[in-house]
């Protein structure tokens, strides 16, 4: 994955945001997240268990999807701003092997703060996350 060109000013402009990121969420990624997070729920790791629960395959942790979507924003902004708030709704589970396409753009700018709306899609019609926002605050006090 290429390194993002970073945000070099604050506040950012409306419509600005990190470059689009794509990431395949395969079983190795899900297993790595389970190990890193401590969440070993078998619905993420055991295909037979997932199928008994009515799913076609294992699914990614919701917080893996959110973390993947937010990572691009933080990589882009971290030298100018810190994340003060994140909110999201998990609208569709990401199945093992699916590719996430993550985008974000600034929708609000205020005094020392900016809000980005994020999208994480598994296809042009299927959103894994909805109502996803990240609030940044400047590292430099005005």
């Amino acid at each position, binding site marked *: *994955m290429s*390194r*993002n060109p*970073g945000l070099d000013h604050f506040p950012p402009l409306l419509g600005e945001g990190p470059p689009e*990121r794509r*990431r395949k969420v395969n079983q190795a*990624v899900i297993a*790595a*997240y389970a*190990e*890193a*997070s*401590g*969440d070993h*729920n078998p619905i993420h790791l055991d295909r037979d268990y997932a199928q008994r*629960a009515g799913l076609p395959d294992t699914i990614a942790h*919701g*917080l*893996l999807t*959110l*973390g*993947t979507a*937010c*990572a691009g924003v*933080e*990589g882009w902004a*971290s*030298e100018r701003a*810190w*994340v*003060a*708030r*994140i*909110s*999201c*709704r*998990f609208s569709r589970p990401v199945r093992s092997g699916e590719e996430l396409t993550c985008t974000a753009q600034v929708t609000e700018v205020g005094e020392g703060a900016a809000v980005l709306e994020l999208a994480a899609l598994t296809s042009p019609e299927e959103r894994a996350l909805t109502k996803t926002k*990240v609030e940044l605050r400047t*590292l430099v006090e005005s």
Partner: protein
Amino acid sequence: MSFNPDCVGTRYQGTPQLLDRDRHGAYAEAVGASPGSEGEFIRPLACFAAVYLLWPVVPQLFQDPEVGLDVEHLLHGEQEFSFERPLAFDETIEPQGLIAQVDRRRGMIFLDFRCEGRDASQAVVARARSLFVVKEPK
């Protein structure tokens, strides 16, 4: 084991969590995060709160026989994290969880779970709100 609607107000205490670079590095790799131009992360990723704030207490909720959640039919519906200040590596955060609200409607249980993380001065520096949704048996 059936769900106990009187579980609101139940609290869970997590063990203090060190925000160490090794554990963060494994998390960052799992979510595909890249460090900044200096080649290393300036501060922990915000969603790393899933590891030091949520996960020390959420399994206690899921396994609590006094609550009786059917985790096989549980979905993570919504998630929020908020922070009072940027956190730093090598800080220790003490997490605590609370069942804040329960709603039952249309055959579903909506459980609002709140977490707070306190720093070494006992100030709350990180918060999480998780909405867990469980389908009730017919």
